[in-house]
C-alpha cells in the first residue's frame, strides 16, 4: 500500500512510547517487540479505519492493548501461571527488561492485576487523559479512575516493605527514633 508519509511518520513517532507501554505491560522486551510488530502489521492493514486528525497514539495503543489482552487470555488458558511467579522471573532476570535499578519497581508492577497495571501506565506514564485511557481500555472513565487508584495503593503496599526509611512518617519521628537508644 502507498501511504501518506505524514501518516507513516505519525505511526513511527508513536512507536517509542507504544513499545514502552508494551514492555511495561508484559515485562519482557522480546515479547514487547513482537507485540509492537504485530500492532504495526494490524494497524497498517487497517489504516483506512484511522481518521486523519484524530488521536494516532490512542488508536495504536488500543490495537496493541487488545492484542496483548487476547494473547494474555490465550496464555492463561494454556499455562496456569501462579501469582508471583512472573514477578520472580523479573527479579532474577532484570537484564530482560532493562536497567537493574528499576527491577524492584517492575516486579511490583508485574504483581498488579493487568487491568490496574494498564490503567496506571496509560495515565501515569504514557500521558493519556482518563478519557483517552478509558477509550483505549474500552471501559468507563470512572472505571479507569478507580483502577488507577487501586493500582497506586497496591504498589505502595508492595513497595513499602523495602522503603520504610525512605517513606518515614516525618522528621520529628525520625529524629526521635534515631536518638531513641537503638543500637
Amino acid at each position, binding site marked *: 500500500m502507498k501511504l501518506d508519509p505524514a501518516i507513516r511518520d505519525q505511526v*513511527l513517532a508513536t512507536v517509542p512510547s507504544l513499545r514502552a507501554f508494551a514492555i*511495561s505491560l508484559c515485562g519482557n522486551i522480546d515479547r514487547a517487540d513482537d507485540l*509492537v510488530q504485530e500492532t504495526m502489521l494490524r494497524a497498517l492493514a487497517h489504516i483506512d479505519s484511522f481518521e486523519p486528525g484524530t488521536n494516532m497514539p490512542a488508536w495504536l495503543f488500543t490495537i496493541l492493548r487488545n492484542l496483548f489482552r487476547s494473547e494474555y487470555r490465550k496464555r492463561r488458558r494454556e499455562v496456569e501461571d501462579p501469582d508471583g511467579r512472573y514477578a520472580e522471573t523479573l527479579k532474577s532476570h532484570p537484564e530482560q527488561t532493562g536497567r537493574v535499578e528499576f527491577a524492584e519497581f517492575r516486579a511490583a*508492577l508485574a504483581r498488579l492485576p493487568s487491568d490496574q497495571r494498564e490503567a496506571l501506565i496509560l495515565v501515569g506514564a504514557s500521558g493519556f487523559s482518563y478519557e483517552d485511557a478509558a477509550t483505549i481500555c474500552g471501559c468507563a472513565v470512572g472505571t479507569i479512575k478507580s483502577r488507577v487508584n487501586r493500582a497506586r495503593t497496591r504498589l505502595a503496599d508492595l513497595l513499602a516493605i523495602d522503603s520504610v526509611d525512605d517513606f518515614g512518617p516525618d522528621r520529628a519521628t525520625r529524629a526521635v527514633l534515631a536518638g531513641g537508644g537503638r543500637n
Partner: protein
Amino acid sequence: MKNRRTVNVEEKAVDADKPEAWDTMGRPVNPRRSEVRLGREVQARIGQQLRAMYEDFVRQGVPQHIEALVRRLTEQDDGTA
C-alpha cells in the same frame, strides 16, 4: 533522649506543610492528617519511578527491524491502497 544524633532529612520537604502538633514522643497529634501526607509522598515517589522506568524504555527509540517493517509496508505499491 537529650543527646540526639543528627538525621539526614534532606529532600524531605516537610517544611512546606503547615505546622502540625506533636506529642512528647514526636508522634503527630492528628495522625490521620499525617497519614494523608505520607500517602502523598509515597504516591509521588511511585509516580516518579513509573515515569523514570517508562522514559528509560522510550529513550530506546524505534528498533531498526520495526522501522524497516513500517517503511516496507507503507512504501510498496501492491494495489491495496
